[in-house]
């Protein structure tokens, strides 16, 4: 369990063996969820080096809903993957609640993903051979303090479709199962990479409502990547990325409910 207050327990139980506190900042719940300093990522493809992130300094706080905007290749996904422990930076520092995430082994990253982060991708990536309930149960079987699959599916309004296989669900329903699966572990962080990219507007709205509800009710730090600039209005904070750098950061005075977004 990685909600504020319980974080210590979670970290101590699962990650402390491997995560080292930064020398000048003792791990405290009052720390931002993520602190990045000079975060860079270079991909070596053949003879060419592609700089995906170029010295990003940024913080993400608990309970925030952040939207990342930017053209293709601006570094949004790279940033998200590094935050979620799917990738490691080439240089710079990233800490999670004051714990260093840059120099940890694969096992620690696995535990980090297992207990602290939920992912939602553009393609739903459900296991086709498992029903909606079982897809969620997959996580609840390994997480420390999960909600029940039924609770999680209720949160995304799928309580009545729990025993359907992915092939029997619409795209929007599948994406909501993916969200339920991501949040069933009560993660501290929910990372969504173009969650509505493969959906039509109406379906997209139901999916975003589910994301927003989770952010609001569970206080989960939620970071959403999108190409759709109008989604920026539902966020607390909007970051624009270009050429691997955060070029603009603005805070919304008020968050617009999803239904009121101007599509």
């Amino acid at each position, binding site marked *: 369990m990685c909600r504020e207050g319980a974080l210590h327990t979670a970290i101590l139980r699962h990650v402390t063996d491997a995560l080292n506190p930064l020398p000048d900042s003792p791990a405290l719940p009052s720390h931002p969820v993520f602190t990045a300093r000079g975060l860079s990522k270079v991909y070596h493809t053949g003879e060419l080096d592609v700089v995906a992130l170029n010295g990003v300094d940024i913080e993400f706080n608990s309970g925030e809903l952040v939207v990342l905007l930017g053209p293709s290749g601006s570094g949004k996904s790279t940033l998200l993957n590094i935050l979620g422990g799917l990738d490691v930076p080439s240089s710079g520092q990233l800490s999670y609640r004051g714990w260093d995430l840059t120099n940890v082994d*694969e096992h620690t990253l696995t535990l980090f993903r297992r207990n602290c982060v939920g992912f939602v991708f553009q393609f739903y990536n459900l*296991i086709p*051979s498992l029903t909606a309930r079982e897809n969620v*149960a997959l*996580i609840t079987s390994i997480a420390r303090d999960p909600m029940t699959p039924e609770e999680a599916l209720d949160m995304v309004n799928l309580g009545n479709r729990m025993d359907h296989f992915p092939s029997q669900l619409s795209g929007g329903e599948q994406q909501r199962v993916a969200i339920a699966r991501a949040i069933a*572990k009560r993660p501290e962080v929910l990372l969504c990479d173009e969650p509505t990219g493969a959906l039509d507007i109406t379906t997209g709205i139901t999916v975003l409502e589910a994301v927003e509800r989770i952010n609001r009710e569970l206080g989960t730090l939620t970071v959403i990547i999108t190409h759709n600039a109008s989604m920026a209005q539902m966020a607390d904070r909007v970051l624009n990325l270009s050429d691997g750098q955060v070029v603009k950061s603005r805070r919304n005075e008020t968050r617009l409910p999803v239904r009121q977004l101007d599509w």
Partner: protein
Amino acid sequence: MLILPLDRKLLRDLSHMKGQMVAVSLVMACGLAMMIMTRSLILTLEGTRDAYYERNRMADVFDSLKRAPMSMAERVAAIPGVAAVEARVVVDVTLDLPAVPEPATGHIVSLPEDRPQVLNQLFLRSGRLPRVDQRREAVVSEAFANANKLQAGDSIVAVLNGRRDTLFITGIGLSPEFVFEARAGETLPDNKRFGVFWMNYRAVATAYNLDGAFNDLCLDISPGAEAAPVIAEMDRLLANYGNIGGYTRRDHASAQRLNDELNVLRALSVAYPIVFLSVAAFMVNAVLARLIRLQREQIAQMKALGFSSWQVGLHYLKFGLVIVVIGTLIGALGGRFMGGSLVHMYTMFFRFPSLVFHMDYSAMGLALLVSAVAASLGVASVVWQAVKLPPAEAMRPEPPTDYKPSVLERMGLAKHFTPTFRMAMRNIERRPWQSLFTIAGLSLATGLMVLPGAMSDSIDYLLTYQWNMAQRQDVVAFLTEPGSGSGFHDLQHLPGVISAEPVRSVQARLRNGPHSRRLSVTGMPPGANLNRLLDGNGRQMDLPEGGIVMSAKLAEVLGAKLGDEVVVEVLEGERPTRTAVIRGLIEDFAGIAAYMDLATLRRFMREGETINGAYMTIDAKYWDAFMRKVKDTPRAAIVLVKKDQLAAFRKTTGESIGIIRTLYFVLAVIVAFGVVYNSARIALSERSRDLATLRVVGFSQKEVASVLLGELGMLVLAALPMGLLFGRGITTFIITSLSTETVRMPLVVSLFTYTTAVIVVLTAAACSFWVVGRMLDKLDLVGVLKARE
């Protein structure tokens, strides 16, 4: 060289899937290697035999008799249909070899002095033929000479008709009638104690009072003439000369043994490729099906660009054909190598002037054809699915795979299953054929491991059964000529004899309707306990008074069953012909035999207390004294020592089983590894998205691997019992094919054999798991998940 762009794509795609290519090609190569090996061995043995028979003029008809004047040979030669006649003297003598405590047997065949041999011509390996004026010179058979380290210039002591004589070896030779060089009716050669000697006619004939006469006859039948009428006429002519009765080459001991071996090879040359190629065909199917699913959009592109369905189909067919070509090449090399090694094994059993492995290139062509057909069958359905797809539809992603709860869950057992176990169950159920063939492939591997172990088990059982339960004597001594009761008395009073039981054996032809066989009918006293007759359940059988007891195989050959009456035509003495009821069937494993109560047989023969020899147990303390005495007893012609037979049996079969065992071990490991690797590789490719998802949501590498491998593990576990059953089945098949009139084997499979098979297959599977597990570790999580399905 210009390579078409589509072929360039083929080559690059192939290089990306080389692991699987190699796995499938190897499984295919195993079947083809077995096919090429067996067919090449058939070609080699048959070709060598035919050339040898032709060049050295192997006779078509054989006969032996008591004594007939040479003039009778001329009358036989005049029978229409006879092209050539070789009349000779053939006798068995006791040899006294300094290095061998037991007496050995020399089978002496006379050589004409005034002309070269017409039939069964001697092939002189080294030295020279005996000089006409030399009585004591002999050419010795190669196998015997090698076993006893004899060469031209050496001498050897033999007892010719009661007189010890020193024979001088002038040369080493071979003959087409002794390709399989063993005492009549023996399953395996004992070259140390049995050898063939060729001596001048007069030297042998004089010693046995056969001067101007012969006791053995070989005929060459004119092309186009039938052997049967010739034999009938010859038997009529020689009826008064103690004729045993003519028989054709088919019934000739050495020729028959060689034929039996060829028949076994023929059975194997069909059975193996069928099994291996079926598995390989499926593997090709699975690999190609996966490839075509992955290349759905590429296929649409190709068709959109204007390639015809035929061109696209051919492109994917070529993947299968490349596998076939690689498989055939490896198979040919493997077959050649294995054949070359096994030919060496045959030289232990069969003696030819030279036995050089000949590759059957037509088998290679056939292998290519057969495997191409198998692969095409494997590929056809998936290629067809690919080409019939309209381009527009193919451009769209494949619809999500449809799943349903597995049978076990529908039975209400779902609550006991973890999600990952459910995934495994449902995946297996959704692709039943794929699962079934994976199981079939692994069963094949397991079965292949069972087979050589079972053969070894059978031989162990045979040795225990035949040598300890049935044959409880230490030695069997035969007299040169059937003798009276005093002969038995003499044998009984040799030093160290603990017990002795008399044996009377007569040459006879057993007939049932159109079926007949020539063999010795053995008479034994009631309650005989040294050579025990055992039924199929290993129970001792008493010889009933009247009636006959025979090998179950003999009854099968004669088409007779228990209680049937067969005709017994005795071929010696007064040649009585009677009928006898089959009163019992015995389970024996070498040759075919028939037994009668001693008194009944003697009544049958209208004779007194005649015997041919005795079964004896010897006090070990007196062993050497006993053997010395036997060597000095002129009347004792053949002494079979049980422990020597056992040692010879163990040596020859042990060595060949060892070779076969290694061969099958390699095949089993290749198939087990190949099948598991291929299935795991396909599963990894098909399920990479699921597996990446599991990794992203927080499953550890180990946990994800256990999902993938758990499913395959279930298939492996399902395959093991089936494989053991299959192994038993294939063992039964092989042992049935091996069940000839000369050799048979009991069907025995020990727990050790089953366990070894399971362990080997599990180990091979674990190795493939390890290899695929390493690939799983390198899975690009993000790449996979962000790709469109």
